[in-house]
């Protein structure tokens, strides 16, 4: 079992710019089933990806790959021609929210939006548009989702992952990698790792992910990595205390962040005394979450939480 993505996930890409192409190639090398690309002015073209297989990914493949991705003008066409059931969005910020809505309108199960810098107002609208649809949005401004050995959607380096027992959920991309790599080194491994993104309005929050990990038979424990700004970690802590049976470890970034300053992520800001690291750490400890003192200790904290 895994959550969100697995070996049956068929992915289309929206936004075939330089970044989109680079990471599509990496995803194919990992073994992800990339099946189509959507580009309004390159419809009918074929995008070829070839290179050396990343053997840290899906097992049992040849040493090289050559994949031809058909390019479609709309997501609906791509879905009906290829049976894609998930999308990854690299579309530039002004058009990203529209791409997300197009993916939802085409009935995809999952949309992973990597794009950073989407206007908040656009995301408010997109989120309302998605509210009555079955499509799950992860992101924007996130590294993506990976189920090691099955499917990698996003920009995370594949080789740091190892299939295992722990679910990872984080607002920060690079801190997700830190946690994942430590779990690989200490042998716990990951079931699925999910970056939910650093924006104030995102598609999937901590509670959504914790619920999925709680219901996933393979996942034995969860690491959640938060940061300053908002109250999503406090809400997650309440959920952990009342609904989670599995052990949870955690880390919060931004203890030393000055108030009133936006720390890189649009959502990472302490304003009016709200959203501090101290308040989040306190709420998480109170909920029984084992907190890592530094990001280097996240894997160790998870091991302690498992007992």
């Amino acid at each position: 079992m895994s959550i969100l993505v697995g070996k049956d996930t068929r992915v289309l890409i929206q936004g075939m710019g330089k970044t989109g192409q680079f990471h599509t190639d990496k995803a194919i090398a990992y073994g992800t089933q990339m099946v189509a690309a959507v580009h309004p002015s390159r419809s009918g073209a074929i995008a070829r990806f070839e290179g050396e297989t990343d053997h840290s990914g899906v097992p049992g493949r040849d040493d090289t790959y050559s994949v031809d991705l058909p390019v479609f003008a709309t997501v609906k066409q791509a879905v009906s021609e290829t049976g894609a059931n998930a999308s990854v969005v690299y579309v530039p910020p002004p058009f990203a929210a529209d791409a997300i809505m197009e993916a939802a309108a085409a009935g995809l199960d999952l949309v992973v939006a990597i794009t950073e810098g989407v206007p908040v107002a656009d995301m408010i609208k997109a989120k309302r548009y998605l509210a009555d649809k079955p499509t799950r949005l992860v992101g924007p401004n996130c590294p993506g989702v990976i189920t090691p050995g099955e499917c990698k959607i996003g920009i995370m380096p594949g080789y740091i992952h190892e299939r295992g027992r722990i679910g990872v959920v984080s607002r920060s991309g690079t801190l997700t990698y830190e946690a994942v790599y430590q779990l690989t080194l200490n042998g716990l491994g990951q079931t699925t790792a999910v970056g939910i993104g650093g924006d104030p309005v995102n598609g999937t929050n901590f509670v959504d992910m914790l619920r999925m990990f709680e219901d996933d038979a393979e996942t034995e424990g969860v690491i959640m990595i938060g940061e300053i700004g908002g109250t999503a970690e406090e809400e997650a802590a309440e959920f952990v205390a009342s609904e989670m049976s599995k052990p949870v470890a955690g880390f919060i970034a931004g203890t030393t962040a000055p108030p009133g300053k936006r720390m890189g992520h649009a959502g990472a800001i302490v304003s009016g005394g709200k959203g501090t690291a101290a308040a989040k750490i306190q709420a998480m400890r109170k909920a029984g979450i084992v907190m890592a003192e530094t990001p280097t200790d996240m894997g160790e904290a998870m091991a302690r939480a498992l007992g």
Partner: protein
Amino acid sequence: MKIHEYQAKGLMAARGIPVPLGQPATTVEEAVAAVRPLIEGSGNPVVVLKAQIHAGGRGKGTFRESPDLRGVNVITEGIEGGPGAAEEKVGELAARMLGSTLVTVQTGPEGKVVNRVYLEQGIDIASELYLAVLLDRTVSRNIVMASTEGGMEIEKVAEETPEKILRQEIDPAIGLADFQANELAVGLGMDGDTARSFIRFVKALDRAATELDTDLIEINPLVVTTGSLVMALDGKMAFDDNALFRHPDIAAMRDESEEDPAELAAKEAGLNYIKLDGTIGCLVNGAGLAMATMDTIKHVGGEPANFLDVGGGADEEQVTTAFQIITSDPTVKGIFVNIFGGIMRCDVIATGIVAAVKKVGLTVPLVVRLEGTNVEKGEEIIRQSGLDVVAADSLKDGAEKIVELV
């Protein structure tokens, strides 16, 4: 992005939102010249002179050079002082305010230099309220927040008397509905002309928030005049930086004198940089990791000199600029580069560091920790450069090494 009160009021006035008449001035002469037209235009002999800085608490704030002088001053000399009395007082106050440093609860002890004042008509106030349109992250929607407790710090009201704060969620497809505006008016104890004036005001404010992509519009105080008109006595606006591309007119309102020069240079290079008080410069990819790097430096006994996130897609040039910004800070006694490559490739970072060191030199210890995409290439580039770099194999290891070296 923040703007000044006079700019926010200009944007409101252009959208039919009642604000007092006013005129900004950057010199004493401009301030004095604005007095007569304002008194004649408003019919009120009282004027108000307000310091324009990007921080609140001006009414209670004082000037470092004149501890008896506040950031907001009501000038009543025009009532009985005869011709020229208001001008004389405005001239005297403007001379003491312009170029001086105003210290408020929000500026920190270092205060902010006042480069501009705003002269405004006096208003006959019946009552003071609070009104704001802002994002509520828990519902992923904007909300209107209103309170009868005008002129107070809203955080304090929320803590002490939360029942005095009214909220309405705004559906992005509908906007603030009439009944919601009416519920707010009733909740604020209004009726008749006042309620009608308020409803028009709050609906226009909601439209302005949507049209202008604001992060926050805060009116504190919102006043009801003795003539039952609802009016913005103060006005604060902050905009979504990610939406400025569709508002060139707003982007042009940026007052660079309000911002830290190094932070500004970083922003122009597409970097996220925030200056802090410590001695260890950090260059990191990813906002979360950059924060965690600062936290870890502090945890092992050091003090971070800055937050610097080079972002996911930085090129060699941006890395060089980032390095230059860090090394040009005289308080930096050591540098810690911490990269976990995803989008960011370690070889790009390594090439940037080598280029930067060759360009600007290196006089302080440098610890580098690389992990992730193309890490071998990155390590190879640094090894072959012959630079005096200390390698670290984890965040904590790197933090300990740099703290030891400084």
